[in-house]
């Protein structure tokens, strides 16, 4: 990790320096009307090497999958194969235009069609739209679809969506963005949905339920079929949040247990890079009830020719052009390499790694649910009096590990949500568990080591309260 302070790009600027030389103008000029001409453009002026060093040095201030174990729960930080990048870099993808016409983009349409098919097959659904750009975007699409279907059934009074209290914040936020009311339902002591609580709220105001399965506690919802049947019986529809599909691909088709519509995060399960925040893809897949409502257009095939078509009752377009196409190429590359057998091995090893690590961690740390988990599990950071999860997370940084997800799910106090993924070796898991054991000891013997961590980073803990009170969001010279 690069510990040396790096100036802002503006602070490296010197008038007259040129980073990229552009060609001379080879046509007769046309004057730019003075009344509209921009008087000043305050951008930095740096040479190319300065730019290269600046951004290289910045990169060295990041933890990443390529450099560290990154067991961020619910984010599936698995290895992002380099072949994905090679496959996405063919000029035939990079420099083709979304409006060039189907006849000149058959290769791109073919890839999209094949990806739609394999994703539908993996989830046990009938059709797929590749448009949504992220998980939350897929959720929004799915809730729009549920709403449109309920209206078509003459059920416009169904405006409430049920969401377990263990769900990601995007679920209720997506409902609000779709003009629906999010209703929280509590979890039962075993971590699953409380069936009595569910029964109590299932009335004719309910449009559907959003379920993450496995849920954010890393537990498979054992009553999934019963829940889906109860919701369907009451006139509702079932949304599946596919954030945790890495535990299920090749193990269970969600479409076979009553899920009507589901998003998959291609940037989690299907190995495309997270890019420091994106781009992702949150494709939506649907069964017979909702497939006609998918966002469009989607790709169809006839006699070896591919074209865009719009599902008959489509909710409309969610995004410009063809979604995050470059990410689709990466995900397809990965699935094509793995095949059915590889996908099953992927999920099996993800769950095996999580359980192995769980058993090791359980020796020194409290777990919320000390039983067989799926791809992740939740420990609690209050390992000694006065020690908080945040301190544990920061101490892990000193030891060269990216911290797990912390303080989530909200229903577990001092949560440390750990997802190792299948691409980590037993040695890495052993080392991480040993470090956690050491930190548990330090928490008792040298709590100041935790309280003051991290010690070997470019900066210490930042005063986030002050930053939000008087925000500085721009360089102001």
């Amino acid at each position, binding site marked *: 990790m690069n510990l040396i302070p790096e100036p802002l790009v503006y602070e490296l600027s010197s008038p007259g320096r040129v980073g990229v030389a552009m060609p001379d103008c080879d046509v007769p000029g046309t004057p*730019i009307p003075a009344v509209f001409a921009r008087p000043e453009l305050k951008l930095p002026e740096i040479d190319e090497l300065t730019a290269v060093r600046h951004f290289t040095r910045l990169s060295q201030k*990041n933890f990443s999958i390529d450099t560290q174990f990154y067991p961020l729960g619910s984010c599936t930080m698995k290895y992002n194969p380099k072949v994905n990048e090679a496959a996405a870099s063919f000029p035939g993808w990079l420099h083709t235009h979304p409006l060039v016409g189907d006849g000149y983009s058959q290769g791109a349409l073919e890839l999209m069609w094949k990806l739609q098919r394999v994703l539908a097959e993996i989830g046990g659904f009938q059709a797929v739209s590749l448009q949504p750009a992220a998980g939350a975007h897929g959720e929004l699409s799915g809730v729009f679809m549920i709403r449109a279907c309920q209206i078509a059934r003459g059920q416009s009074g169904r405006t409430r969506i049920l969401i377990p209290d263990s769900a990601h914040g995007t679920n*209720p936020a997506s409902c609000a963005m779709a003009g629906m009311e999010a209703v929280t339902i509590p979890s039962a002591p075993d971590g699953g949905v409380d069936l009595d609580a569910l029964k109590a709220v299932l009335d004719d105001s309910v449009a559907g339920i959003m379920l993450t399965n496995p849920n954010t506690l890393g537990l498979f919802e054992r009553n999934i079929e019963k829940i889906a049947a109860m919701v369907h019986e009451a006139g509702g529809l079932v949304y599946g949040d596919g954030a945790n599909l890495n535990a299920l691909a090749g193990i269970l088709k969600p479409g076979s247990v009553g899920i009507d519509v589901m998003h998959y995060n291609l940037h989690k399960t299907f190995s495309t890079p997270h890019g*420091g925040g*994106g781009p992702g893809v949150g494709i939506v897949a649907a069964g017979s009830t909702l497939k006609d409502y998918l966002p469009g257009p989607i790709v169809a095939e006839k006699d070896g020719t591919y074209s865009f078509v719009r599902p008959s009752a489509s909710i409309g377009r969610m995004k410009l052009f063809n979604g995050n196409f470059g990410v689709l190429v990466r995900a397809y590359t990965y699935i094509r390499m793995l095949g059915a057998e590889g996908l099953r091995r992927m999920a099996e090893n993800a769950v*095996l790694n999580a359980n192995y690590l769980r058993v090791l961690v359980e020796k020194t740390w409290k777990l919320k649910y000390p039983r067989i988990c799926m791809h992740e599990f939740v420990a609690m950071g209050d390992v000694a009096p006065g020690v908080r999860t945040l301190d544990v997370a*920061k101490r892990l940084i000193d030891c060269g590990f990216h911290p797990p997800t912390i303080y989530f799910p909200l229903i577990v106090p001092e949560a440390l949500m750990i997802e190792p993924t299948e691409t980590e070796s037993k040695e890495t898991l052993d080392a991480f568990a040993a470090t956690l054991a050491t930190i548990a000891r330090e928490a008792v013997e040298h709590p100041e080591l935790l309280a003051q961590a991290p010690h070997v980073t470019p900066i210490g803990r930042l005063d986030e309260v002050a930053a939000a009170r008087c925000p500085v969001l*721009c360089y102001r010279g």
Partner: protein
Amino acid sequence: MPFIPNTEADRQAMLSEIGIGSVEALFDDIPAGKRFPKLDLPKGISEMEVLREIGAMAAKNATASNFAWFLGAGAYNHYIPALVPALASRGEFMTSYTPYQPEVSQGSLQAIFEYQSMAAELFGMDVVNASHYDGATALAEAVILAWRSAPGRKRVLVPEALHPEYKEVIRTYLKAFDLKVDEWTGSASRAASGVDARTCAFVVQWPDFRGELHDLAGVADTVHAAGALFLVHVDPILTGIWKSPGSYGADVVTAEGQSLGNAMNFGGPFLGMMGVTTKLVRKLPGRIAGEAKDHEGRRGFVLTLTAREQHIRREKAVSNICSNQGLVMLQTCIYLAAMGRNGMRKVAELCWHKAHYAASLIGRLPGFQVANGTFFKEFTVKTPVPAAGIVEKLERLGIVPGLALSRYEAKRDRELLVCVTEMNTREQIELLARSLQEAAK
């Protein structure tokens, strides 16, 4: 298996530590009859084979490198300096997560802050967020922002000449809230007087879908006097030479940032950009990086004002956005830094001069007419014969002359939207003009 380090010996050791006999036993919670389904997928293949297969698919597409390229309409063929992908593809940037742990994410966070600063300068805005999915979803969320600032006002005025796919996305997003989307025509300054007490937002696309670059003088005053917000969706390359939307009094500025260092990529990933005035910052969706200090007073950067966001506020958040277009934003950050003051001016000037040269040649052709008053890099040509036919003929000659507007609107069958950027040489422009004349015969 590719990408899985566990050997059979590892697996056995791990199973015995867990205390179970087989991997299958880990899945006992899953309904027995549905467990381990058969997946009908092609058998997995090696890296070498997959690249051959995918390379063959990619080769079937027409690309801007193999044609004289004059097609824009929302996705633009601009030059991407070599350092942009070289730096952005560094694993430390590409394989990191959203920077929720600032001490080990200063690289991403400082880059976001630098991007915000440079984009705010282009727009003439106080604050820019860390990205939306694309220009269309950014504009849709900007309209929602305007409505949430004045919830009683349920009408939005958008240009009739707004990009058709932007209109579609806005309609999809707004359906839920029962907002009325009306369209304005004519000049922006006259249309602004249509803003009434029911209207929350007046939207200008700048230049609009057909290339017209409206004069925004006075628009903000009219819109503000009626109590609405003024939203401008701008071509960010234009801001290299043109007065910024902020200087015309825009409250919210959105843009499609693909032009700034990102490939066309068959339409994505693109970059939704959004900037606002300080007054609106706590309503701005998406992530924002801010400056902060640690206990020793060292400068660092952190995601801030998070009380707007879904992971804190859940259903009360200003938006549901979580994953954004981080790596695309980084490409744009590197692009803006490397191009800098001089490069951004130069690119905009080249687009301006070349587009105007092309328009002057085409406008002189018999039967052809340039339909715009003021334009930047894209203009509409009225054609003597159906434009779709011209496009077809020219494509066979290795020229993609633009977008036949009949693609979106059947009645505009004799209109061709031509885009000229710094990538087009004088030879290509002259070839385009000659070939158009030939094709119309």
